[in-house]
């Protein structure tokens, strides 16, 4: 079950897995995610369904190594299996079927962006893609994105490739140059989404963001994933993860994501000390 059919290094810290999951592939829609566990004592972590193939019964996951579970996940090889995999979770994205949409990603946010861009592009929407990363080594999935984009803009924080600066800066430039968009989809780290939302707010330009709060069950049972959107508390796992970016309380979301920082370091350290993670 949940066997890894393909594993690819997109960069030192970003990996791609194609996993057997026929039931999930059958039902998956762009915007949805899964929760997985790697080992018996392991945490449940959410990852976006970056792509799915209903015929082969497979889903694609793209993740960045940030802590213990993603590090353990990165050690699995083709032929290995995930211990647990459940989904598809969350609401499918509400995507327009015509017009012109800016699809913007920062860092590994390109993984959750890809299925949306693909669906838009296949529906005949003009897809203007802006993807950025710290440096060019971290710009991933550019070929895949290129295949589903009408226009591509690459950005790096250090200027090692493309536009020198943040994706929000590039978006501002395009808007200043008179480009028109019907909607914007922006996915990446919270500061990147917040910056993008601030660019589009004065124009009243509808901007979807995909939130990544801490989750446990992913079915609405625990409330760990609660986020403030407008005046309402929403559970990102069932009401989201995509929300109207202009209504999201980013400060709260950032604060809540930091909740376990000391513990996360401790668990990584503890595992390494016991040789739980090999550095072959």
């Amino acid at each position: 079950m949940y066997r890894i059919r393909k594993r690819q290094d997109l960069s030192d810290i970003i990996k791609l897995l194609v996993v057997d999951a026929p039931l999930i592939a059958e039902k998956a829609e762009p915007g949805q995610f899964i929760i997985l566990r790697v080992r018996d004592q392991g945490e449940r972590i959410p990852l976006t369904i970056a792509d799915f193939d209903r015929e082969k019964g497979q889903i694609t996951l793209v993740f960045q190594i940030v802590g213990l579970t993603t590090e353990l996940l990165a050690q699995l090889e083709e032929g290995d299996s995930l211990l647990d995999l459940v989904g598809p979770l969350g609401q499918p994205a509400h995507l327009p079927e015509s017009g012109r949409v800016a699809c913007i990603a920062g860092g590994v946010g390109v993984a959750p962006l890809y299925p949306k861009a693909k669906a838009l592009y296949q529906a005949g929407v003009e897809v203007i893609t802006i993807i950025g990363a710290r440096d060019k080594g971290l710009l991933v999935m550019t070929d895949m994105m290129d295949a589903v984009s009408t226009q591509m803009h690459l950005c790096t924080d250090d200027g090692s490739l493309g536009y020198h600066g943040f994706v929000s800066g590039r978006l501002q430039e395009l808007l200043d140059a008179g480009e028109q968009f019907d909607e914007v989809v922006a996915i990446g780290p919270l500061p990147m989404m917040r910056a993008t939302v601030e660019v589009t707010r004065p124009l009243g330009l509808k901007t979807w963001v995909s939130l990544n709060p801490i989750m446990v069950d992913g079915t609405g049972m625990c409330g760990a994933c609660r986020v403030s959107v407008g005046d309402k508390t929403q559970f990102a796992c069932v009401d989201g993860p995509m929300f109207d970016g202009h209504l999201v309380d980013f400060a709260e979301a950032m604060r809540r994501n930091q909740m376990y920082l000391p513990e996360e370091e401790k668990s990584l350290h503890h595992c390494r000390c016991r040789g739980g993670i090999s550095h072959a």
Partner: protein
Amino acid sequence: MPKRTERLPMPTQPADERIENFEEVNLGFTADLAQAEAKRCIQCKKPKCVEGCPVNVKIPEFIAQIVEGEYVEAGRILKETNNLPAICGRVCPQEEQCEKLCILGKRGEPVAIGRLERFAADCEREQGGDMTVERPSRPGKVAIVGSGPAGLTCAADLAIRGFDVTMFEALHAPGGVLMYGIPEFRLPKQIVQTEVNYVLSLGVTLEKNVIIGRTLTIDDLFKQGFQAVFLGTGAGLPKFMNIPGENLNGVYSANEWLTRVNLMKAYDFPCWDTPVKPGSRVAVVGGGNVAMDAVRCARRLGAEKASIVYRRSRQEMPARAEEVEHAEHEGIEFHMLTNPLRVLGDDKGWVTGMECIRMELGEPDASGRRRPVPIEGSEFIMPVDIAVMALGTSPNPIVATTTTGLDTERWGGLIADETGLTSRPGVWAGGDAVTGAATVIEAMGAGKKAAEAIACYLETL
């Protein structure tokens, strides 16, 4: 020699020791204690106690076997009507059920039926060996949704009748609340696993990590050839108070708190990967079993001060009597007639306290309990660094919203008749999903009734 009017006490781990660990508080009767307590039962010809039990355990019969020293046999008698006796013996609110009606209760203390049930079930589990028997299989394929007490019971009863049963569970481990909610120190997970394995040994297939309504719909199940479906999906949706500050770092729902601690074993962090914030002053808002479990977990995780904040008085607290008593011995503080108004935080967004108001009891409300009303001007600040909201739960809407023809109450409960049949032909439901948060044994009773009705239905096909 006159008969004793008092029941024998349950040996427990001393309170000062047990707050340092997550091991079981109750140690269980020894054979001598069990014999002595069993002999108190006068073997009524028309046993009242049995009427008080939602699954009608053959109480005098199993107790008689304990008197005879036939402990494993006593356990087997339990299993004739109760597939999960080691669990019920531990967590049933017996004082409200079987023991409430025991005849000895009129003049003294009732027979300690729950403690005896636990003893016999444990003996059977440890010494009983394999009970699997070949069962003739019958045509009929049933899907059970949810593996809590309702689903487990329905699955077991249908498997015993020879039907082909598959149980679907959303989480990575079966057992429902028994696994993710009720803590290890009250119900060891090893026991839940053994009881689940017993159900599986009857021939039930378990599919974990499948969410009905997401991974598969009810329509898919019928398309796959299932002829009947039982929904034992529980009441897993947490309520919050909707007061300011509830999204601060350090505010948990009881569900999250308990799931991290029990299912994900955060008490054993970092050996297990999932963390929880232990807190040194923990306030748990609520007065039921869930609140009691949450606050006792907090104490064991190291909180110096662990308190219950409850808006009614001690009398109205719905928690099991034994748990409240145990909590008191463990140094839990009880702030009765107190209601939080808002959660306060520091500039980094972490909880620092709760503003509360004192309450008094007014006229009885719809539930017959006296309604708590705030005393104006009695606001005060309680310093806390972790707040846990144990305010009750409601059914998860995932199944109802993805299934056509399934009627629900306004509060989310599935509508079902007395056999558990819903408004959708071929679909039954039972347990917390229908009643709202209730008890393990009531959920099992509902699972049993539905199994009977489903069996009849399958015969007619």
